[in-house]
């Protein structure tokens, strides 16, 4: 069953691999020469006919005269045209681009096939249009904004992502990825992989299928379940900034096994070494991967004193108080700005250690503890920390079983703190009195823009009034944003008056 899945998963990448590597056992392409290959590439898409070749049959050319913007009455094409055609034809064997004039370069680039092997194009072509065509050809939905607006980067990132997604340790040749490395090392900034396939050897053991219920027994076979080791790849990518990993399998359907979602210690250690070695990494995300305290601490230890790391996302894991304590230590030993521990198992002590670290931190901007269980002891500790903290702007404490005492302290914080702009206390048990106290605190606050109190047993009236206050704050902020010059001028104009 899984074979089908994997083969199905591999299908889209198969063609790309074949186009990339001619020598590999490609399906329908024949390596006779460039001419037939081009013909074959044209014939499947006759409707497009973007390459109105002068060497093509006359009738076709006639037929599409109306749509051809480059049509001309000159029967004999120019020598430059012919040369360009030739260059395009033989680009794979003899790539000539940089030596041409800009206009000719443009012409060549417009006519190059997106199926050319990456080894030829990767480091030669910088033209976004070409890569746009490549992307559009491979993926129906392209969100170039997620890749820094660069089509080339997008192409390589998604290509690499595809390869990693369908890499089966032990079965797939590691060279497949490592060969790509010299081509994509300068363009890949972000690696986003939402599945890591386990080794295929699992299939050969029918017993695993029988013992599919006992997830606990998976530990016995842990060494066999290691996933792809990112070390070599990450070390090769010189501009890598973001690493977004999910150790799990997507679309497993009825083939579900606990073993498929196993983030082993070996994986953890190798990942820790990888990110420790990567000094350009700014964002690290490891979500939905069953990271427990031990693994979290291994990873966090490797991140201590990391030079540039700004965002750490360990949401949807199994991190408890010890992991939270590790994260708290990390806060004051790095330049972390965003910490996301949503949907973990952090309890009061963990939150207290986080609060202790937060009290004197000057880097952290956003803290997300959604769906944890810090309760009032943790909430109060955090509120105390916020009285001294001057940096945090966003705090998410939704679904943490907080109640009135935390609300009391938070209202005091609201009156004092001028940096917080967003607080989320949804899905707690704040209660009516707590809501009133928060309303009191809000009345003294001029900076808070968002305050989420949904489903937290707060009276409608106070919620509404808080909303009013937030609205006023937002308006004030908008005014300040819109005409800072006016604001400044009034100050400067009134300055002398007041002083005089």
């Amino acid at each position, binding site marked *: 069953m899984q074979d089908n899945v994997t083969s199905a998963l591999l299908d889209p990448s198969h063609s790309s691999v074949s186009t990339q590597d001619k020598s590999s056992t490609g399906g329908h392409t024949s390596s006779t020469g460039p001419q037939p290959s081009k013909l074959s590439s044209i014939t499947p898409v006759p409707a497009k006919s973007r390459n109105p070749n002068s060497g093509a049959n006359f009738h076709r050319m006639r037929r599409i005269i109306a749509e051809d913007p480059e049509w001309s009455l000159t029967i004999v094409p120019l020598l430059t045209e012919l040369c360009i055609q030739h260059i395009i034809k033989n680009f794979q064997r003899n790539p000539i681009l940089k030596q041409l004039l800009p206009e000719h370069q443009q012409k060549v680039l417009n006519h190059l096939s997106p199926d050319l092997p990456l080894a030829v194009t990767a480091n030669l072509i910088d033209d976004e249009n070409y890569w746009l065509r490549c992307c559009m050809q491979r993926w129906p939905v392209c969100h170039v904004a997620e890749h820094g607006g660069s089509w080339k980067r997008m192409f390589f990132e998604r290509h690499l992502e595809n390869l990693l997604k369908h890499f089966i340790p032990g079965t797939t040749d590691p060279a497949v990825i490592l060969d790509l490395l010299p081509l994509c090392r300068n363009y890949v900034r972000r690696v986003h992989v939402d599945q890591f396939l386990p080794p295929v050897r699992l299939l050969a053991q029918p017993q695993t299928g029988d013992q599919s219920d006992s997830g606990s027994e998976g530990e016995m076979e842990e060494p066999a379940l290691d996933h792809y080791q990112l070390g070599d790849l990450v070390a090769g990518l010189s501009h890598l900034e973001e690493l977004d990993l999910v150790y799990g399998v997507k679309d497993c359907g009825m083939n579900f096994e606990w073993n498929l979602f196993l983030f082993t210690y070996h994986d953890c250690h190798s990942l820790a070494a990888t990110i420790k070695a990567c000094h350009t990494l700014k964002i690290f995300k490891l979500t939905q991967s069953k990271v427990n305290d031990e693994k979290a601490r291994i990873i966090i230890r490797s991140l201590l004193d990391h030079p540039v790391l700004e965002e750490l996302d360990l949401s949807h894991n199994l991190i408890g108080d010890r992991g939270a304590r590790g994260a708290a230590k990390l806060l004051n030993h790095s330049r972390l700005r965003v910490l996301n521990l949503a949907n973990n198992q952090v309890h009061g002590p963990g939150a207290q250690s986080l609060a202790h670290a937060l009290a004197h931190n000057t880097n952290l901007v956003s803290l997300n503890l*959604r*769906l944890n*269980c810090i309760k009032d002891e943790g909430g109060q500790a955090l509120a105390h920390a916020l009285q001294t903290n001057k940096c945090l702007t966003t705090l998410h404490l*939704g*679904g943490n*079983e907080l109640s009135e005492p935390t609300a009391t302290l938070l209202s005091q914080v609201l009156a004092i703190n001028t940096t917080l*702009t*967003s607080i*989320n206390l*949804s*899905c707690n048990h704040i209660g009516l009195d707590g809501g009133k106290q928060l309303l009191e605190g809000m009345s003294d606050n001029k900076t808070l*823009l*968002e*305050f*989420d*109190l*949904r*489903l937290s047993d707060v009276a409608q009236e106070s919620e509404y009034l808080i*909303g009013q206050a*937030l609205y006023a704050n*937002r308006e004030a*902020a*908008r005014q*300040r*944003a819109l005409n*800072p010059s006016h*604001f*400044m001028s*009034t*100050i*400067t104009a*009134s*300055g002398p008056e*007041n*002083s005089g």
Partner: protein
Amino acid sequence: MNPPGSLEGLEPNVDEHLSTQVLEPSVNSDNPQERIQARRLRIAARLEARRREALGEHLDGKKESEEDQSKSYKQKEESRLKLAKLLLCGTELVTNIQVAIDIREIHRRVEEDLKRQRIEKLEDEVKTSQDKFVKITSKWEEGKQKRIPQELWEMLNTQQLHCAGLLEDKNKLISELQQELKTKDDQYVKDLKKQSDDICLLLERMEEQVKNVMKTFREELYHIEKAFEMERQELLASNRKKWERALQAHNAKELEYLINRMKKVEDYEKQLNKQRIWDCEEYNTIKIKLEQDVQILEQHLQQRKAVYQLNQEKLEYNLQVLKKRDEESTVIKSQQKRKINRLQDTLNNLRSKYAKQIKQLQEENQSLTLEYKRLMTQFKELQKAVRHFALIDDEKFREIWLMNEEEAKDLIARAFDVDRIIHTHHLGLPWTAPDFWFLKNVGPISQQPQKSTTQIVEEMLLRTEEEEAEEAASESESYLDLPKQISEKTAKRILMLLCDESVRRGRAAAEGLTGVFCCRGLCRASALGIESEDDLYKLVSFFLQYRAHHLSSSLQSKPCSQASVEEASVEETSMESELELAERTEMEGEKEASLVEGEKGEEEETPPSPWVIHPNDVLKILKAFVKGLRKPRDSQAPLRVQKSVRSNSKDSEYWRALTTVIPPSRLNLWDALYTALEKYHLVLTQRAKLLLENSSLEQQNTELQALLQQYLTSKVGIRAFQGGVAGGGGGDRGQELAVGNKESPPHQRRCDVKNQQWHLETITGQRSRSCLKSPPG
């Protein structure tokens, strides 16, 4: 209330703005100006905020009134608010699902407590079943011991029962768990369904939201555009109206202006005409006047031209003259230059010559100094020789004296013998030898066994000259041990000081011989009881000691008070000698006057030597010295001092006395005797002559007889007889002269001695003078 989409877009701006506002003039900046600016801004912001609070409502009202002015702004605000609300509501709607799921999750987690309960239950179960199992297994042991089949059977039965119970329990539990699993599975499926529903709902809502938002955005955009259009229309209409009104007003005004202008033009024309006539008249008068002026000026010009030409000629002449002069001056200059050069050459020559001469003179000077040194040595040697000769002279003098004396005494003895012979033989009187003092005297009278201070001083003076050179060398030696070598000169000065002291007292002022330091010194010395050579030296050494002792300390702290005391004490000792001194000086005064004069001048010239002792101190020193000496001495010295001088007179007396050994009466006697004897002698000689004549006549007679006999034989004999008579008369006179000569030598010798003495004195005087001449330095 999760972040709405539109606000998400806005927020970064807000943040940015806030951050920039905070960052731009930061209070923590390094630049002080910036800090000041930041603080000012902060203060201003606070004041502004306070003011706004106070006038909040008023301001808002103002703002609203402002907003009323522009419809589009109002519309914009409205639509913005509407859209913000829409977005907020939409996002809330969408995020509500998440929140709902969250709370469901929380509820589920709360249910997980059931899991814990279940686990506990299971554990309890395990424990109880374990216990049961242990019981059963323990019973097996019992069963092994049973021998009776019934009992065994019974036990087995019970065991079976127990096992069945245990199994039942387990099965029950399993069935329970399976039930639970089933429910959980159901729940899971339900949850899945629910979640898929939720996701569907979410998607739906999102789509709806997107649609809504797009729609409302479009609507609002349309509204805004419409509002803008309206506003534009209104503005156009109002502007056109305004424009028309303004145009009309403008036209009216222009007409008015035109009329005014025409009127004014007419006025101006009239005025112009008037002005023209008036100007013409004026122009004519002025023209005439100016022409006259021109003529006058032309005349002036002619004159000026003449003057100018004259001047030009003069100036040209002057220029020529000056050029000539210039040439001359250049010639002179060149000459002067050449002269200067020549003079420079000569100057250089002269300089070189001068240098050469300096060199030469230096060499000469050196050679002369060498010569001088050599001469000095020679001079010293000469002095030595002189002294040596003086000694020798003295010796000789003594010898001569002795010799003469002996001679004189021989003569006297002879005279006495003669006298005695005369007395005894001729007169027949008894002769007594006369006893004179000088007959016993042997050697020169002036010779004295002890040296007087005068001699010491003389000696000293001599020696100072000798040892001037040595002094420098011996200075380093301690003066206490060798007072003589050092202090010969010093002693002189001390003595001079003594003299000065006497002058100051006014005692010796009458004498006018201030500089006669020798005798003064002597007097003083004698007055102080200094008679011997040793004493003088002692005094000198004492002086030096004293001075050395007191030089550093305060010497003159109280000279006045002591002076009086000293005076008294010194006067006592010196009073007697003072009187004598006056007499003596008068006697010697004339002798030494010559010396004094020279010395006076020299004294004044002597510069203050390092050995100078202040006159005020002298008394002190002397007093101390006298005290230290403690030997009152009688003042006999003055008598002896004059012996050497008196000896001369005594000598002459002596020698004269020697001449008068034979008293004149006796001489008279001798003369009378002599005359008598002479007469007697004369008689005798006449008798002798006569005898001789007689004999000669006899002889002649005989001869004549012989001759007569001969002559008688021949005539020659008569002539020879006449020549013999003439030679006999001359021999008598020569004897008389010899006697006169014998008496003269003693007298002559005396004169010689006198001459010698005087000669000696002159020499010594000269020496002392030369000694004074040469300065101690």
